[in-house]
């Protein structure tokens, strides 16, 4: 800009000598973050009341993706509702299918064949890895680390290719249906999956070197957004959030479904700095802890998939006679461990083939409600770090 322009517009002249930047004049300001902000992972809007660099209050506004899926559930048969569950948590379609299928099976008393149960576990755990890879990659992106994102998405792409081979879709699978799984695994798929796991397992180390133990990343995420176990439970925050606060709790262990009790795996939790290789500065319950629990969970998922592939029995993959099942005049509430936490389905039947009420309890919805509590008196730059560590999927928050 030339001098003449600046002289004609005196507002553009900044007096650097008088120290405008050091001026700590406090003035409250409302800042609108979203709904199209890249660091909010979807259409989340957060209104921030700030004072300088400090955030005094953060109020999330949701509902931009609301489709009233629960009302749709009251108008279609259960097997027709499966595709709608894909579109709730669209990063973990398999796990959502599984949750709803389990609820209907428990309500109508349907037995799932052994082979279908094992295929379900394989697909659900693969989807958990894929979902955590997105979480890791985009969280790095939020913190300014671009490389890890590309590495994570490279591996996720391979999982999506395998899902495409198994069920024909890359994101909205509907592969796990009421009474079993929609399709049997194609020929050669198990060998392909084995190859992938052998390739993938050492890559977790790469993510750790690139991102987890990167000094800049650790500095930005440690000691930020600390949540205690009791706060998590009060707000209904579950999954990696609860384990990131140090509580060993996983529905796959405490209330096992689809035969998870027969698999040998551990439930990783967060540890303080210095224990089990956790870098200095980290406090249990901070953003880094929540992030790192997801990394550790991927190793456990690999273990589960390997065991499942070794035991895959022969047999049918779907219970017989599943169209037009009459739902009894009864109700159930079933929860499964989604990559983001406990996903619950309440289903009520009234004797007809169409449910009288379908309610989905999304883990992201409950996890997000803690935002106002955590984002109190934090730095403005920490808000994306905190929101990213909660790892919300807006499709499921808004349903």
């Amino acid at each position, binding site marked *: 800009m030339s001098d003449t322009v600046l002289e004609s517009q005196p507002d553009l002249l900044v007096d650097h000598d008088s120290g405008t930047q050091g001026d700590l004049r406090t003035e409250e300001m409302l800042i609108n973050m979203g709904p199209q902000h890249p660091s909010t992972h979807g259409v989340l809007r957060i209104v921030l009341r700030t004072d300088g660099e400090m955030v005094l209050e953060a109020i999330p506004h949701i509902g931009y993706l609301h489709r009233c899926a629960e*009302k749709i559930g009251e*108008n279609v048969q259960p097997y027709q509702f499966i595709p709608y569950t894909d579109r709730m948590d669209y990063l973990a379609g398999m796990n959502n299918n599984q949750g709803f299928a389990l609820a209907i099976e428990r*309500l109508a008393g349907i037995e799932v064949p052994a082979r279908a149960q094992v295929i379900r576990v394989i697909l659900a755990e693969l989807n958990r890895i894929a979902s955590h890879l997105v979480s890791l990659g985009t969280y790095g992106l939020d913190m300014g680390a671009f490389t890890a994102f590309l590495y994570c998405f490279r591996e996720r792409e391979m999982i999506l290719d395998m899902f495409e081979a198994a069920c024909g879709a890359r994101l909205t699978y509907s592969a796990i249906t009421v009474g079993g799984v929609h399709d049997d695994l194609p020929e050669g798929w198990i060998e392909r999956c084995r190859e992938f796991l052998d390739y993938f397992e050492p890559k977790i180390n790469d993510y750790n070197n690139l991102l987890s133990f990167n000094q800049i990343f650790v500095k930005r995420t440690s000691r930020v957004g600390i949540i205690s176990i009791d706060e998590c*439970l*009060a707000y*209904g925050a579950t999954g990696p959030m609860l384990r990131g606060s140090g*509580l060993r709790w996983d529905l796959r262990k405490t209330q096992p479904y689809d035969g998870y009790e027969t698999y040998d795996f551990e439930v990783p*939790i967060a540890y303080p700095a210095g224990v089990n290789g956790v870098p200095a500065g980290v406090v249990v319950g901070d953003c880094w802890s929540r992030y790192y629990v997801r990394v550790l969970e991927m190793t456990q998922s690999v273990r589960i998939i390997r065991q499942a592939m070794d035991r895959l029995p022969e047999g049918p993959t779907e219970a017989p006679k599943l169209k037009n099942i009459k739902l009894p005049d009864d*109700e159930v509430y079933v929860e499964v461990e989604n990559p983001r936490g406990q996903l619950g389905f*309440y289903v009520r039947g009234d004797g007809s083939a169409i449910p009288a009420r379908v309610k989905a309890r999304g883990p992201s919805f409950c996890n997000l409600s803690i935002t106002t509590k955590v984002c109190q008196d934090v730095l403005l730059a920490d808000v994306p770090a905190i929101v990213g560590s909660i790892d919300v999927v807006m499709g499921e928050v808004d349903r």
Partner: protein
Amino acid sequence: MAPEDIFKLLATEFGDAVESTTFDGGHPHVTIKPASWPGVALFLLENAKLRLNLLRSITALDLLADDKLACVYDLMHVPTDDPETLITDTFEIAVRVVTDRNSPVIPSVAHVWAAADWHEREAFDLMGIHFSNHPDLRRILCTDDWVGHPLRKDYVFPLEYHGIPATTEFELTNPRH
């Protein structure tokens, strides 16, 4: 603790507040009178034997045939005394609170479980149940100027919203089911 024992404990502690209990079926639950619900909720959270510290979900129900609305609260005990050890010994119960359909009011339990804040807002938004003493009762998923509560069984879909077509008259007069 088994649901039977919890319901017995509630009956001795609160007497008349317990309207009925249901054990058979897939979802054992106890029905509590709306006026007594906050006291019962505090008891469920703070009693040393119960410690139901996780409010998992609040499901709003439209019981059109009985001309009632209801809320189902799904609660769970998560042991936290020894966080590093995996404890699988847990229990869960469900509480149902039934209210009148024409003037539905249920006391809020957001001060007992913070999770109830958003769940109650959702039930208010989609089912039109008012929660007295709620800290910030406003719509959460629908827009502020939305008319009606979509999850009610007698809800009529609007033809348009600010000029955006929502449904057609044919759809309204020819429901698929």
